[in-house]
């Protein structure tokens, strides 16, 4: 190595070191009159679509709160800023980025990533550093049986997603004068933690009614085709078919039941909006039951956004599309943080954590009330049925805007 080169490298290292020392205190939890939240969200990789919804949800909350003058903590009013990193849709990377947000960027308040996987990657890190994390997009119940103290989720956990459809099935059976325990249920879920939770919830409720599970298929991650499962459905004629496999599963279930003319009295799936089943399959999507965390038609309200519908309008004006629930629950996470900060009146993480745990708040997204494990127990899942190309809430009865159509009309009668 020539002497010149050695000097050059030495110089570069020195500059980097100086820069590092100067830079690290600059981004602290509170910069002057700004509170900085940290988030690692998927901008690239397989969750990037939902990652975008998550970021838009966070950004809209920050924008609205700043518009309204900011957040009053103690005697001072602060603006809000969110520092993002891209977790590349990989849980391991989420963990690294949590470490970086907390240790390098000195951020004291973390907002969750998109998806149960990345949330699982981050939770142990925030727990280790005793930094609170409020998330709106990690629904796996495995997140809430580890005794995490600093993790809070505003959404309903995944085992609740489609359990309600079993109750609807039982009610419809009773209405027809049939015994619910004679009902047959078919389950086809993707082999991932989220969908397996959904399966567990469905099986629990089916057992409660004494229903029989006639098909219990676990679809592979690289799912491309459901022909074999649907042939089984044709052969065994269950009364309900429950499918969960993110957008892919939703699109395949709606498309292939129509193509193969599978007559099943009830089809209940997740991720209808994400897969845009109405836009893609039109009339073939009719009568499908869709689980949703939230919908713009709900009647919750808060002081920041007004009613759910007002939030939807504001969101659409800003980003040009109707907010999916992934965006709404992200916005709600920020609102819960802000409410807790205001009540705590300090930036002490321990006090803020206790204030979050004591949250009892109505937001446009729904009521928020955390149990000891950190999950929100005040907001139920909602089932909507696609009727004439529109989502109509049908259960639970409190939110119902219409009656569920059961059984689905046979394909030859459509």
């Amino acid at each position, binding site marked *: 190595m020539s002497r010149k080169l050695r000097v050059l490298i030495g110089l570069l290292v020195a500059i980097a070191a100086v820069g590092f020392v100067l830079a690290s205190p600059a981004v602290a939890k509170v910069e002057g009159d700004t509170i900085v939240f940290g988030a690692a969200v998927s901008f690239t990789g397989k969750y990037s679509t939902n990652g975008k919804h998550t970021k838009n949800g966070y950004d809209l909350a920050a924008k609205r709160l700043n518009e309204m003058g900011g957040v009053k903590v103690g005697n001072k009013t602060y603006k809000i800023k969110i520092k993002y990193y891209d977790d590349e849709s990989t849980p391991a990377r989420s963990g690294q980025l949590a470490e970086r947000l907390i240790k390098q960027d000195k951020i004291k308040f973390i907002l969750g990533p998109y998806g149960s996987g990345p949330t699982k990657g981050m939770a142990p890190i925030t727990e280790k550093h005793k930094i609170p994390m409020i998330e709106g997009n990690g629904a796996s119940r495995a997140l809430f049986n580890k005794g995490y103290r600093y993790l809070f989720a505003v959404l309903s956990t995944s085992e609740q997603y489609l359990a309600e459809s079993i109750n609807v099935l039982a009610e419809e059976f009773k209405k027809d004068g049939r015994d619910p325990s004679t009902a047959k249920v078919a389950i086809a879920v993707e082999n991932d933690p989220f969908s397996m939770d959904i399966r567990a919830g469905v099986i629990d409720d089916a057992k409660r009614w004494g229903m029989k599970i006639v098909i219990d298929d676990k679809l592979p991650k690289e799912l491309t085709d459901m022909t074999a499962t649907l042939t*089984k459905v044709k052969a065994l004629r269950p009364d309900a078919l429950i499918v969960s496999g993110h957008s892919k599963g939703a699109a395949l279930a709606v498309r292939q039941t129509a193509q193969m003319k599978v007559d099943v009295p009830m089809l209940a799936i997740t991720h209808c909006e994400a897969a845009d089943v109405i836009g893609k399959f039109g009339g073939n999507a009719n009568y499908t039951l869709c689980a949703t965390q939230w919908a713009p038609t709900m009647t919750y309200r808060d002081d920041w956004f007004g009613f759910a519908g007002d939030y939807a309008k504001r969101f659409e004006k800003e980003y040009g599309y109707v907010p999916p629930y992934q965006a709404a629950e992200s916005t709600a996470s920020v609102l819960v943080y802000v409410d807790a900060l205001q009540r705590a009146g300090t930036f002490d993480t321990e006090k803020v954590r206790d204030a979050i745990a004591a949250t009892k708040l109505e937001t446009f997204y729904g009521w928020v009330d955390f149990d000891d494990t950190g999950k929100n127990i005040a907001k139920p899942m909602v089932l909507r049925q696609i009727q004439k190309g529109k989502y109509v809430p049908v259960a639970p009865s409190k939110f119902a805007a219409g009656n569920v159509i059961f059984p689905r009309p046979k394909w030859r009668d459509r």
Partner: protein
Amino acid sequence: MLSFRDPNGETAKPIKQPPALVIILGRALLFGMDNLLILFAAPIFALQLLIDGLLIGAIFALAAYGMALVWGVMKIINFAQGEFVILGGYMAFTFSKAGVHPFFSVPLATVSLYIVGWLLHRLVIFRIVEEDLFISILATFGISILMQQLMNQVFSADVQTLDSGLDTWFLFDGNVTVLQIKGVSFATALVLGACLAVFMKKTRLGQAIRATAQTPRAARIMGIDTDKVYCTTFALNAAICGACGALVLMTWVIQPFMGLAYTCRSFMIVIVAGIGNVAGVVLAGLGLGVAENFAGFILGAEFQAAFVFSLLVVILVWRNFTLRLKRRYLE
């Protein structure tokens, strides 16, 4: 196995439980028996599975032609095969969005993937031809990751699909359904396979490709521009994948990260069929489709892939065994 520690610090007797694998397999067999009985009681469903399996298998075969070709001629195992298929699907999707009829999007996807393949060869692949197999695997693996992420950036991670406008045939009182688009795919796969076989046998270029596959050095000495042959071969592979992708788009759904399923299946088909054997690829593809469908029905979807890959191991062991017998005769 669970074990408990009592307060005295002595380890209590562990409670014996059968290993998880035994439980899972036992459950699958139990369900499997039930499902097998259905097939015997109502053979009509076996017919449905058979027909669907054959039609699906044809699509897999279509994806595998090119892999066999590239493997045979260039000694490259193309790990980006599935990504070519998915990109073909996105090309067809883009063209149809621009107003092209779904059917015409198939040849358009084919042509655009030919160009993609040609460009990739000029940029990357020509550097790794005649190199170590390991290097080519690394390079194509890299291309596959790059293509996934680029498709994700350009087309977003949303699931896409295209309606072919075709309907379904109903046989046996609606108990057996055959998608017309699957029929079209089947026909396309067979026709393309036949064209490929004729092309390799009869045309000058096809002969040049075969000569290069045998001994590249001798081919060069005889005046064949092997570089051009490699380029054409690789582009041809991409083109066939493009057609396959367009058909996949119309039959199922596509997403930037779905390529691996097609890469794995092509790989398997080529291993079973042997390289440079078009008829073998078709047969292996059809066999794979049928096996997969029956395994999915009888054992459940989670064992579909496991069953097929176990079958691959059995086939390889069997082939090794028979070859060894043959060798013994020669001695």
